[in-house]
C-alpha cells in the first residue's frame, strides 16, 4: 500500500482460481468428476472435498476454484474437469495476477483466527481423536458439515452420548501460548452448541466445565438459563483438565473438582474445547503493510476515543480485529466504519456512480398473454436428469405459450441477451424461466425483461434444479414429469401476472436524533459531517447524558475532556441544531418523511426529517437493599467514581471498602446482566489502590464479567490484593451497621463458597453495582415512534444479530444504552453504526417500495381491522372515505409478507404479484385435468 489518506494505491495479488469467474456458473459438475479427495478446509478437515470445489455452499461468488492438490497442477496428469465443463470455464493457464486499485480510505475487517489448542499437548487436541475444538463441533452440528449434520465421533463414526465442554481454552491465562484476555463469546456459543446438541439428540448428556459464566450480551442471561434448565445438562464451575484417552473405547477422561465431591475423574465420549479468539494470522504483516499500531495482544489499536479509527488517517477497523467481539458489535462497527469513510470522503460522494438506462416500458396489459418458456440445462445439472427437449415440446402445448426453447445456461450473458432479443422478436409479454431457485437469479431475469421493454413483474421462474433434478437424480422419467408439472404451474400463474410499478417517494434529507448523550452527539456529528442537517433533541438543559457522571474509563480515557470536545464540536457544527429541555409531543409520517413536534424551552417546533435516531440512554437503578439511602456510607459505583474523582478524603483514605455486584439485576424483576458493573468495580478498585495501596477492598460477585481486554484489569486488581469473593444469588450478603472496638462500621456477612463458611467483613464504605435500567422515557418514546421493546424493556432492534441499530419500523435507528447497557467505546461504535445506516437512507433521493406490496380494494373492505392487527410493520391504517372507514396500505412500509391477505375475510386486501388468482391457478394446475378426472373416476368406481 502506498500513498496517503484520500489517495491510497493498493496492490492486490490475486492467487489463480484456475477457473474463469465470468464463465463458471457454479454448477459443480467438475466437482462431481474430479478424482482427487482432499481434506475439506471449510469443514475443519474432518471430511474430504475435491481438488476443484466451491469453498462453501453460500460462497460469494458461488463459483469453483482449484487448489494445490490438483493432479494437473502437480504433475499435468488429469484434466477431466476441463472436458466436463460445458462453459469452458477451466483455465490452467491462469497465473498470479497483480491488481492495482486507487482508494480514498481503507477498512480493515480481517476478523479473528480461532485459538489453536495444538500449541500445548495438555489439551490433547490432535493427539486424542475425540477431542475436538468448538470450531470443529460447529461444523459437526451444521447440516452442510462433514457428516451432513450428524454429530459423529471420529473414532467410531457413532453419536457421542456424553459430551464435555471445557471453557476458556486459550483464554484468561497468562501461561505462554495462551491469551491473557477473555474471548467474550465462548460462554454463549457453548450454550448454543449445548441447545443444538439436545435438539439433535435429546438423550445426550452434556457437562460444561466453566469459570465465570459471562452472559453480558443482550438477552444472553435468559439464553444461559434456557441451556442450563435442559434435562441432562450440567454446568460445573471447575477447572478441568484432560487426563488420558482410554485405548479401547477412545473415550477421554476429564479431571475436575466440585465443592461437594472434591477432585473427580470422569469419562466422556467426546470433549469439546471452547477455544478463544486470536488476532488474524498475519496481524504483524498487516500492521506493517498498512502502517497501523497494534495493541499488546496483536489486535488493532483504536485511537484514544474512537475504536474504529486506527493510528493512520483514512484507515479504519471494524469487527473482531478491534478485539474479541460478538456478531452484533461486528455488524455495527462495520456500519460505523462505513460512516467514518463517508465522513472522510464526503467531498467526493457520488462522483463514481453510474446510472443504468433501460428502454421505455411497453404497455402490454391489454394484450392476451403471450408466454415464452425458456428451459435451462444448467450445463448437465438439469439435463442429465430431466429430459429438457421433451419439456420444451410439452411447454408448447400449454395455453398461451407461443414460444419455448432450451438454453445451455439461461444465466450466461449471451443467453440472457437471447431472452431479451426473442421477447422483442416474438412479441412475448410474459416469460417463464425453468431453471434454478429464484432466490439467486430472479433479479437477473427481471433485468432481461426490462431490457426488452417489458415490466419486470412479467417474469416467472420454475425451479427445476433444486426442486427437481438435484433431488431426483435417480428417477429420470419421474423427474421429467415433475419438471413438466412445475412448468405447467408456472405458466398457469404467469397468465395472470400484472405489470407492477415500484413506487418512488422523495426523502427528506434531515435527521432527528433523540438524546444528547455520547451516543446521540457522536451519531449527530457523523451525520452532519456527511452534509445533512441534524436536529439534536435533549430533554435536559445541557448535553452529555450519563457520561457527565463518569470520569475515566477502565482503560484510562478522560471522559470529561472527551465530552467537552464532543459538546464543542456539536455546538460549533452549523448543520446541527440542538434543542434543549425538549419534549417530543407527536411523531407522524414514515421513513423518509417524518414530522416531529417538539416542545423546547417553552416553544413548539415542528421538525421535518427523513430519519430518526433513538439514543435516549439509560438510567441507574436506585437500590432499596443493603442500607442504600439509609446509611450514607453506602453508595453506588457511579457515586463512588464521582467521590474518587472529586478526591473526597474520607473515601480515598478509607481503611476498607466492600463492593457488592449485581444489585437490582440478574434477578426475577430484571432478568439481564448490566454488562458494565464488573469493569466499573475493578476500575474503582484500581483507582483506590492507586491512591492508597494498603486499602482493604473486597468485591462480592456472582460471575466476574470483565470480558475482552478488561480481563487484564481484573487480573491486575487481583494481583494488587483486591479480594474477590463469589456469592450465590440465594444466599446474598447481609449488611448491617455495627460497632467494632468503639468504631462504627458496616458489617457485611457473606458465605464464601470456596471456604464453605460465613465471612464477616467490617468496612468503612460499601459500594453497590446498581443495575443499568431502561430510561424512564423509554415507553413514551417507543409509542411515539411506533417501535417495540424487548422483554427487559430496552428498545428492540429489528434483528438482534443482523440489524442491531435498526428498528423494524423503517427509518428509525437505535444506538447507545437505550439498546442495552454498554461501555463508552461500545456506545461510540454503535453510534457510528447508526449514523452509517442513517446515511444509507439519507444519501438517496428517494425510497423505493417494491411492486409486490399489498393493496386494498376499497369496495370490498368491511373495515374489520383483521389486516391491521396482522401487520407487524404498521403499514395499514384506517382512513375515512366517502364510503366509510376503509383500510389503506402505505406501500413504503409494506414488506410484502401477505399475512394480512390470508386474514381478510372478504379478500379485499391483495398482495400484488402473489394474488389469490395467481396462486389459485398455480395450485390448481398442479394436477392436470386428465389426471384429476382419472382419479375421480377411480374413486367413484371403487365406491360403487
Amino acid at each position: 500500500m502506498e500513498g496517503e489518506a484520500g489517495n491510497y494505491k493498493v496492490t492486490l495479488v490475486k492467487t489463480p482460481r484456475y477457473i474463469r469467474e465470468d464463465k463458471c456458473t457454479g454448477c459443480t459438475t467438475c466437482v462431481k468428476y474430479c478424482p482427487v479427495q482432499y481434506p475439506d478446509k471449510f469443514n475443519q478437515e474432518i471430511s474430504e472435498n475435491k481438488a476443484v470445489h466451491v469453498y462453501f455452499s453460500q460462497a460469494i461468488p458461488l463459483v469453483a476454484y482449484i487448489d494445490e492438490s490438483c493432479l494437473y497442477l502437480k504433475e499435468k496428469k488429469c484434466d477431466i474437469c476441463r472436458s466436463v465443463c460445458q462453459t469452458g470455464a477451466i483455465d490452467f493457464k491462469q497465473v498470479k495476477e497483480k491488481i492495482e486499485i486507487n482508494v480514498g480510505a481503507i477498512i480493515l475487517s480481517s476478523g479473528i483466527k480461532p485459538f489453536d489448542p495444538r500449541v500445548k499437548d495438555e489439551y490433547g487436541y490432535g493427539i486424542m481423536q475425540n477431542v475436538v475444538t468448538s470450531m470443529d463441533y460447529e461444523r459437526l452440528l451444521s447440516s452442510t458439515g462433514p457428516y451432513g449434520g450428524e454429530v459423529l465421533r471420529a473414532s467410531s463414526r457413532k453419536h457421542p452420548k456424553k459430551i464435555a465442554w471445557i471453557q476458556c481454552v486459550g483464554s484468561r491465562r497468562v501461561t505462554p501460548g495462551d491469551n491473557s484476555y477473555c474471548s467474550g463469546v465462548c460462554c454463549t456459543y457453548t450454550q448454543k452448541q449445548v441447545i443444538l446438541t439436545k435438539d439433535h439428540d435429546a438423550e445426550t448428556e452434556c457437562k460444561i466445565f466453566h469459570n465465570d459464566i459471562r452472559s453480558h450480551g443482550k438477552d444472553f442471561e435468559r439464553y444461559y438459563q434456557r441451556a442450563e434448565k435442559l434435562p441432562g445438562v450440567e454446568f460445573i464451575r471447575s477447572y478441568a483438565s484432560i487426563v488420558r484417552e482410554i485405548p479401547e473405547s477412545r473415550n477421554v477422561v476429564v479431571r475436575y473438582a466440585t465443592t461437594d465431591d472434591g477432585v473427580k475423574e470422569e469419562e466422556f465420549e467426546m470433549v469439546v474445547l471452547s477455544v478463544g479468539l486470536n488476532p488474524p494470522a498475519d496481524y504483524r504483516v498487516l500492521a506493517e503493510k498498512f502502517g497501523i499500531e497494534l495493541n499488546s495482544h496483536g489486535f488493532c489499536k483504536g485511537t484514544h476515543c474512537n475504536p474504529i479509527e486506527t493510528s493512520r488517517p483514512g484507515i479504519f477497523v471494524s469487527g473482531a480485529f478491534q478485539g474479541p467481539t460478538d456478531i452484533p458489535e461486528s455488524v455495527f462497527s462495520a456500519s460505523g466504519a462505513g460512516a467514518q469513510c463517508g465522513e472522510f470522503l464526503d467531498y467526493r460522494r457520488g462522483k463514481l456512480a453510474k446510472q443504468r438506462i433501460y428502454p421505455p416500458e411497453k404497455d402490454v396489459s391489454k394484450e392476451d398473454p403471450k408466454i415464452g418458456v425458456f428451459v435451462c440445462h444448467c450445463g448437465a445439472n438439469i439435463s442429465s436428469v430431466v429430459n429438457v427437449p421433451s419439456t420444451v415440446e410439452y411447454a408448447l402445448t400449454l395455453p398461451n405459450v407461443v414460444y419455448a426453447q432450451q438454453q445451455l445456461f439461461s444465466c450466461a450473458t449471451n443467453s440472457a441477451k437471447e431472452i431479451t432479443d426473442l421477447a422483442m422478436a416474438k412479441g412475448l409479454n410474459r416469460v417463464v424461466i425453468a431453471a434454478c431457485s429464484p432466490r439467486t437469479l430472479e433479479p437477473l431475469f427481471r433485468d432481461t425483461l426490462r431490457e426488452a421493454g417489458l415490466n419486470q413483474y412479467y417474469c416467472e421462474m420454475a425451479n427445476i434444479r433444486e426442486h427437481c433434478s438435484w433431488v431426483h437424480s435417480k428417477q429420470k422419467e419421474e423427474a421429467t414429469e415433475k419438471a413438466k408439472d412445475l412448468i405447467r404451474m408456472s405458466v398457469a400463474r404467469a397468465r395472470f401476472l400484472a405489470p407492477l410499478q415500484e413506487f418512488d417517494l422523495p426523502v427528506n434529507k434531515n435527521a432527528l436524533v433523540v438524546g444528547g448523550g455520547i451516543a446521540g452527539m457522536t451519531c449527530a456529528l457523523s451525520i452532519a459531517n456527511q452534509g445533512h442537517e441534524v436536529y439534536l433533541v435533549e430533554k435536559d438543559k445541557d448535553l452529555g447524558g450519563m457520561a457527565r457522571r463518569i470520569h475515566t474509563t477502565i482503560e484510562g480515557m478522560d471522559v470529561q475532556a472527551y465530552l467537552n470536545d464532543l459538546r464543542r464540536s456539536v455546538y460549533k457544527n452549523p448543520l446541527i441544531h440542538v434543542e434543549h429541555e425538549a419534549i417530543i409531543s407527536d411523531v407522524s409520517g414514515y421513513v423518509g418523511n417524518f414530522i416531529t413536534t417538539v416542545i423546547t424551552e417553552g416553544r413548539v417546533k415542528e421538525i421535518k426529517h427523513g430519519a430518526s435516531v433513538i439514543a435516549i440512554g439509560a438510567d441507574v437503578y436506585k437500590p432499596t437493599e443493603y442500607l442504600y439511602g439509609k446509611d450514607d456510607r453506602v453508595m453506588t459505583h457511579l457515586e463512588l467514581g464521582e467521590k474518587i474523582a472529586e478526591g473526597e478524603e474520607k473515601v480515598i483514605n478509607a481503611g476498607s471498602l466492600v463492593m457488592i455486584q449485581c444489585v437490582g439485576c440478574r434477578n426475577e424483576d430484571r432478568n439481564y446482566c448490566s454488562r458494565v458493573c464488573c469493569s466499573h468495580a475493578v476500575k474503582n478498585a484500581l483507582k483506590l489502590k492507586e491512591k492508597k495501596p494498603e486499602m482493604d477492598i473486597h468485591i462480592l460477585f456472582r460471575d466476574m464479567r470483565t470480558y475482552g481486554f478488561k480481563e487484564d484489569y481484573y487480573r491486575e486488581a487481583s494481583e494488587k490484593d483486591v479480594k474477590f469473593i463469589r456469592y450465590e444469588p440465594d444466599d446474598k450478603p447481609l449488611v448491617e451497621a455495627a460497632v467494632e472496638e468503639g468504631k462504627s462500621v458496616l458489617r457485611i456477612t457473606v458465605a464464601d463458597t470456596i471456604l464453605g463458611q460465613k465471612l464477616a467483613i467490617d468496612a468503612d464504605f460499601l459500594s453497590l453495582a446498581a443495575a443499568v435500567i431502561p430510561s424512564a422515557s423509554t415507553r413514551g418514546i417507543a409509542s411515539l415512534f411506533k417501535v417495540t421493546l424487548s422483554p427487559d424493556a430496552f428498545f428492540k432492534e429489528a434483528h438482534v444479530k443482523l440489524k442491531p441499530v435498526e428498528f423494524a419500523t423503517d427509518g428509525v435507528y437505535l444506538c447507545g444504552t437505550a439498546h442495552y447497557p454498554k461501555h463508552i467505546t461500545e456506545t461510540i461504535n454503535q453510534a457510528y453504526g447508526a449514523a452509517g445506516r442513517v446515511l444509507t437512507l439519507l444519501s438517496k433521493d428517494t425510497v423505493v417500495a417494491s411492486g409486490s406490496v399489498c393493496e386494498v380494494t376499497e369496495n370490498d373492505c368491511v373495515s374489520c381491522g383483521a389486516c391491521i392487527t396482522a401487520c407487524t410493520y404498521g403499514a395499514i391504517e384506517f382512513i375515512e372515505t366517502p364510503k366509510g372507514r376503509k383500510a389503506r396500505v402505505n406501500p413504503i412500509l409494506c414488506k410484502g409478507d401477505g399475512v394480512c391477505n390470508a386474514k381478510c375475510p372478504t379478500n379485499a386486501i391483495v398482495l400484488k404479484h402473489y394474488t389469490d388468482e395467481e396462486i389459485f391457478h398455480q395450485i390448481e394446475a398442479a394436477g392436470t385435468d386428465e389426471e384429476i378426472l382419472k382419479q375421480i373416476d377411480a374413486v367413484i368406481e371403487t365406491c360403487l
Partner: protein
Amino acid sequence: MCSGRVDLEFILRAFLKGQDGVLIGGCKLNECNYVTHGNFDALSNTYLFKKIMELTGLNPERLRIEFMSGADGNLLAEVINDFVKKIKEIGPIGKGEGIDGKGLKFKLEAVKKLIPYIKLVERERLRVPVKSEEAYHHYFKGDEADRLLDELIGDKLVMSQIMSLLREKPLSTGNISELLGLSPSEVSRHINISSRHGLIRYDEGRKCYALA
C-alpha cells in the same frame, strides 16, 4: 411472501382439485429474519384446517406443516419422503376415507363458503397468547379449542351442507341424515335453528324441507 400468506383456501383448492396431501413449508419458528413471524399464522391455519378435515371426514394427516431453514436440504428430503409414504398408506383422497368423489367435492365446496366466516372466528376467538410451538399445540389440541371449533365451525359446516343439499331439491329430515351421515336428531336440531332464522321452510304439500 411469507408462509403466513398461505390462505385456508389455498389448502382447500389443492384438495378440491384432487391432491392427496398438502405440505406447507415455513422458516423455523422464532427465527424470522423480519418481525413478521408469520409462520405462526401458518401453524394456526394448519391446526384449523386439520380440524375442518376432521369435521368433514377427511384424514387430517393429509395436511402437514414443517419448519426448516434454507440449509436443511437433507431434512426436507426426509420430511417429503416420510410424507409421501404416509399419504400412500392413507390412499387417494376420499377413497382412503370412504367418501365418494361427488360427496367430497360437495363437502369441500361447503367449506369454501365458510372460509370468510372461519377467518373471522380465528381472529375473534382463537388467539394463542404465547408464540411457541408448544403453546400452539397445547391450545389447538386442548378441550376448549375443540369445543369452540365444534361449536363455531362444526355446526356451521353442517348447516352449509344442508343448505347446499336443499339448493338442489327439497328433502326430508331422513333424506338429509342419510346423505350427510348424521343422526336424524342432529339434523332436526339444525333444521329447527335454520327455520327459526327463516332460511328453511317446511313444504306441507311435499312433506319435506326446502329453502325459504
